[in-house]
């Protein structure tokens, strides 16, 4: 059941961000890697800044407070894909 999958950010995985035009660079000291991302990835990471585990639905709800995300099911599907990509990069961990 993907609905119960939880994600979290580890304090040790903090990144340094730098915006260049509409691209955001994320430097991740722990891996020494520089990632290039675009919206909504930085915003998704921001929602996990407190380190507490959160589900896709919770992240979606938090984002809707500041952004218009359109059809919830589509938005959540997209958020889930981004989260799994971030897990593969090691910026977000399964909780």
């Amino acid at each position, binding site marked *: 059941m993907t609905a119960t999958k939880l994600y979290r950010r580890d304090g040790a995985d903090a990144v340094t961000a730098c915006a*260049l035009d509409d691209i955001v*660079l994320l430097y991740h*000291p722990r891996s020494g890697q520089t990632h290039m991302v675009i919206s909504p990835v930085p915003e998704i990471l921001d929602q996990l800044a407190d380190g507490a585990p959160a589900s896709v639905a919770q992240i979606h709800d938090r984002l809707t407070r500041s952004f218009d995300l359109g059809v919830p099911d589509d938005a959540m599907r997209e958020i889930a894909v981004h989260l799994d990509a971030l897990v593969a990069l090691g910026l977000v961990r399964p909780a």
Partner: protein
Amino acid sequence: MRQSLTLRIGPATFRIGSAWPAPIAELARLYAAYPQPIDAIADFTVRLQPTSLVRRFIRPSIFITGDHGLADAAPMSLSHGLLAAEMGMNLQMALGWRRHLLLHASSVEKDGRVLVMTGESGSGKSTLAALLGERGWRFMGDEFALLDLDSGAILPFPRLVSLKNRAIDVVAGEVGEARMGPLLAATAKGDIRHMVPRRDAVARMGKGAMPALLLFPRFGHAADMRAVRQAEIFMRLTQASTNYVALGEPGFAALTRFVQHVPARAIDFPTGEEAIAMVERLWEERT
């Protein structure tokens, strides 16, 4: 090793050892204006050694190595010994230098500000820097521009300029034979001749300056100019840097600052003369 020379270029000191006298003699002559301390502690050791004992004497072939080396580096003919020494020094810088962010770029300075030019081999960045260096600019380097991690300044690394194929005659005609090295015919990159930078460029090789313009030149196309987005500049500069990853967060901070503060243009040009006119115009108009 039988023959050796210690040489200072910009901030780096090289100890070059060779199994044969010729490469060292050529280096000593062409780098006559550079510090050649007898008894110095070197940052890097370069070794030009035979691929085997037989190859020291019969069809001599040079294996280029040193503190940092590539196991699969192709051996070179002894007649290209000068190129081998240059490649050996480049290899040490590319793989071992950590005191600045290394950009595969040429650079020249005017009025205390630096123009940085980066591009693939054949883009014209070397020739352009060499020509500008004869026309009122200070030549700072044709291969590596060193970006200072703290101040954001560009530091010179004015080794010999490596000119290839058609660029040889263009530059030799301008600077005269006395400042040209031997013709190295039919190397892996075609014909190569080295040019000695002007004396004042060598004398001031310890002095950096702040960058004011970044160009991505492209030789052999109809004249054109376009803006480059910051993210693309960042990408291209990380690809043009051999030590970006090794420097970690300080490298990231220095490079993002460079990208955010230095205006950039891509320029296409059909000839060196047109390129120089474009560069001078962009330099006047820079913001």
